[in-house]
């Protein structure tokens, strides 16, 4: 019990995730900067930002609902950290796992978006309200392709547990290339989930200032930003665990290094994607997700079902 609590709090739980999330943010920013031929921030920039924000005053708007307003950042942070416990990172086994944990992870990763929506909606500012609406609209667009993309490997592996899935794919490594469409779909949907260009519509700064976060400041904003950073790491870990599960369970040190490399690779792809696109309009985003992304995810399922029928 004590070991588990230690694991939850320090490693690979809360503390490790926080530090890794900051490093991931730095990597994302420096890569983005290098793609744009800029120098980029120094290594401690995310830490400095976080400390600065935590030291600042929290301002709750007068007409906002203080309870919901203050709860939402913590909820977002809590849910993403909880989600990380079910993802096998450098071992075949996650911290916790049971049959059906994929569904739990996907739903836990939805909670941040819902909390952005509620936080924005209850801060009662014009920009935040519009940002909140966009948050929710966008959720409906990317969630289905993301879920379908993660579902298809599960069908192939015939299990609803992520840990068992990685075991299965480690034994059938040659099946991995067949999931390539799903990988692409999941990556793009992850961009939408993390609200990064071209899907940063809910917080499009030139249109609606900062979207749902317009009224947030100080500690609450710091928690939100931390939640997004951790969400990026957890999302990248999820994609790595589902689509790039090779090398797990060999050796803890090797596995750990591989895990870091995989996450960095996913972050690299995310940064690359966000540096080459313009932000879409919300209705263009819906069009894209339903016209191209969802059918692609369906195609992946069809591929998986056929594979399963023919080969296994």
């Amino acid at each position, binding site marked *: 019990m004590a070991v588990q609590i230690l694991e939850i709090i320090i490693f690979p739980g809360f503390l490790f995730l926080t530090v890794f999330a900051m490093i991931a943010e730095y990597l994302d920013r420096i*890569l983005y*900067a*290098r*793609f*744009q*031929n*800029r*120098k*980029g921030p120094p290594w401690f920039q995310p830490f400095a930002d976080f400390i600065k924000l935590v030291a600042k005053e929290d301002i709750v708007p007068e007409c906002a609902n203080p309870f919901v307003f203050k709860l939402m950042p913590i909820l977002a942070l809590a849910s993403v950290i909880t989600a990380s416990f079910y993802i096998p990172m450098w071992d075949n086994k996650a911290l916790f796992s049971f049959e059906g944990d994929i569904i739990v992870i996907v739903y836990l990763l939805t909670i941040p978006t819902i909390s952005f929506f509620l936080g924005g909606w209850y801060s009662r500012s014009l920009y935040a309200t519009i940002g909140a609406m966009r948050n929710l609209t966008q959720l409906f667009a990317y969630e289905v392709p993301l879920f379908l993309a993660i579902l298809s490997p599960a069908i192939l592996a015939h299990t609803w547990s992520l840990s068992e899935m990685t075991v299965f794919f480690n034994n059938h490594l040659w099946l991995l290339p067949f999931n390539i469409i799903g990988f692409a779909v999941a990556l793009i949907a992850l961009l939408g989930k993390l609200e990064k260009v071209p899907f940063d519509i809910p917080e499009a700064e030139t249109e609606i200032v900062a979207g749902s976060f317009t009224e947030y400041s100080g500690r609450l904003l710091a928690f939100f930003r931390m939640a997004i950073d951790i969400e990026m790491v957890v999302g990248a870990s999820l994609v790595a665990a589902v689509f790039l599960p090779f090398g797990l369970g060999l050796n803890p040190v090797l596995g750990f290094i591989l895990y870091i490399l995989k996450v960095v690779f996913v972050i690299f792809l995310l940064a*690359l*994607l966000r*540096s*080459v*696109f313009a932000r879409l309009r919300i209705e263009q985003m819906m069009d894209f997700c339903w016209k191209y992304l969802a059918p692609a995810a369906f195609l992946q399922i069809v591929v998986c079902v056929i594979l399963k029928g023919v080969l296994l």
Partner: protein
Amino acid sequence: MQRPGKMISEVLKHVGKTPATTNYPFEKAEMPEHFRGKLQFLPHRCKGCMLCTKDCPSEAIKIKKVGDKKFEAEIDLDRCIYCGQCVESCFIQALVMTTDFELAALNREDLKMTINEKNSPKPPAEEE
């Protein structure tokens, strides 16, 4: 022909290149030779014609008589718009512009300069 992600190759090419931006306060920026920066007054040349005071668009420069054929200039750097009109108007080159551009100060008073024979650079020997 349209294709998404047209920039990918260009962007990837730039990963290895040296960044175009510099770490400014730590790496000093070089200004071109004829940059219009901080004003410098050469009191030994001034004849006190006051044309610079008259033509200055922002009333940033005042010339005071401090003795027989001796003048001192009061230059308000926070009023100065660095247009170079005074240098233009001065037909004896008693005013020159330097390439010094880092003029920020915490206090307005720090930006007021009084230049006279005592605190100005010694006139170069080749003069007159």
